[in-house]
């Protein structure tokens, strides 16, 4: 029975790491702009789809990955430049609707130009599962988890050690004050979108060998990413990772031990319970009203 539990845990961690990568993108943009970017899922889709189609066209895998990340990052920059920046200081709901519009546009373009089929990407390190205490794990899962870990560490360093990273944090804290001390907040916002899109693409590429990819995978990944980010506490990179893993594990455990029919509902029950007691998510900053 230990092997079963372990198998559920592996499943949860693999899926959870995917959610975590999606959630980090949400968190990053939320940090810089206070906006929940509903187009985040489409960056994930763009990464996976571009990589898969490039490989099919005969481009070597590493080059295809690099190009796919660039494609998604470019899409992120375009969305910021053409949709978010002109909207300026609109209300948050307005910005949310704009990102939904951006998401539909990107998905629609993918549908028209990349087609509606499902595509696979070859696994990076073969298809032979590793057996650990009777449970099996695909090498690709290790890639997903490993890269997630690297991303966390890299973001930690970026925010903690670099001026640019601190600039992002300052912008999120108080845009006006950040501008006053000479931070180019427009550049920060552009950076956040480019970086989130690139991160999303990395996630989309990593999971494509296991889950396949198509023009509409962004919807589900985007939703799960938002949930994971909120669970962990919006704007907290660490929270996003924990939220993602927790979400994946709860889903796998529910499917394994309770009911696979309700496995998608369980994370939301969990979220409601958590939010009732911790209104800022697990690791979100507490805000006090100042009057």
């Amino acid at each position, binding site marked *: 029975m230990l092997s079963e539990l372990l198998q559920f845990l592996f499943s949860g961690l693999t899926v959870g790491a995917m959610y975590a990568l999606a959630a980090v993108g949400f968190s990053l943009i939320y940090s810089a702009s206070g906006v929940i970017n509903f187009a985040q899922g489409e960056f994930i889709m763009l990464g996976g789809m571009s990589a898969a189609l490039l490989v099919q066209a005969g481009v070597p895998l590493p080059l295809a990955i690099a190009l796919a990340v660039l494609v998604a990052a470019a899409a992120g920059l375009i969305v910021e430049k053409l949709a978010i920046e002109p909207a300026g200081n609109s209300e948050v709901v307005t910005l949310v609707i704009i990102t939904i519009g951006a998401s539909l546009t990107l998905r629609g373009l993918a549908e028209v130009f990349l087609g509606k089929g499902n595509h696979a990407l070859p696994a990076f390190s073969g298809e032979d599962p590793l057996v650990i205490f009777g449970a099996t794990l695909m090498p690709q899962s290790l890639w997903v988890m490993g890269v997630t870990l690297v991303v966390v560490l890299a973001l930690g360093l970026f925010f903690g050690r670099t001026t640019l990273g601190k600039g992002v944090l300052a912008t999120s804290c108080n845009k006006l004050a950040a501008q006053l001390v000479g931070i180019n907040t427009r550049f920060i916002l552009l950076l956040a979108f480019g970086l989130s899109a690139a991160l999303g693409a990395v996630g989309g590429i990593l999971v494509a060998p296991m889950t396949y990819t198509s023009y509409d995978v962004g919807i589900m990944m985007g939703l799960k990413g938002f949930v994971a980010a909120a669970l962990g506490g919006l704007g907290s990179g660490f929270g996003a990772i924990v939220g993602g893993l927790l979400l994946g594990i709860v889903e796998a455990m529910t499917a394994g031990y309770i009911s696979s029919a309700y496995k998608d509902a369980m994370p939301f029950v969990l979220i409601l319970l958590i939010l009732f007691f911790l209104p800022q998510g697990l690791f979100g900053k507490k805000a*006090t*009203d*100042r*009057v």
Partner: protein
Amino acid sequence: MLEVRNLSKTFGGVKAVQDVSFTVRAGTIHAVIGPNGAGKTTLFNLITGIYTPTSGEILFDDASAGGESPDRLARRGMSRTFQNLQVCMNMSAIENVMVGAHLRLGTSLLAGLFRLPGLAKADAECRDEAARLMEFVGVGRYRDAHASQMSYGALKRLEIARALAAKPKLLLLDEPAAGLNHTETAEIEALIRKVADSGVTVVLVEHDMKLVMNLSDHILVLDYGRKLAEGSAAEIRENPDVIAAYLGASA
């Protein structure tokens, strides 16, 4: 009217208000002064129920008021204005004032949906009353304006009108003259006097010493969350601790 006993409030490790006690008698004007960060606004937030005290007691009309919600305190006759304006920019000026009269009108959602006869009449009266109050605080010319079209000084007065619309017994004014020029400050001073004369007990936080000294019957000085001194304007002016706190240790 208002009695504060050993009131303390800590945020995390920071002691914003520490063991403060004072009494406000009915019909007086009471000022709270102190340097920035002395805990004045926190004290207001504790009294008006926005924060819950860490320890200590607040008595309003001889009944406990500590930790009670702002809307229930409003029901009991307490009203206030804010240091950072809290005007509803999504509403017209007069509607902002009418919100102040919220408790005296039918607040049933159903009554509102079906515009029951009694409600329409009361509401029309409320509108006239709000217009009178706007005249009273000196913003009558904004009667048909939207809140977002008003100047900063006018909005400060609008907040006072809204607070008065509740017909409070006790009115707390948080820096009513902040950001105003000389003339405007003088006008606000006259307005506060007028309000007090109409029988409302006033507590105010203010940095403008001239206004404080002119108006106040009693002054409470806070420093680093603690009570530094208390007394009449003349007493406070002479108090060496207050002078030291305001002018720095070098004085």
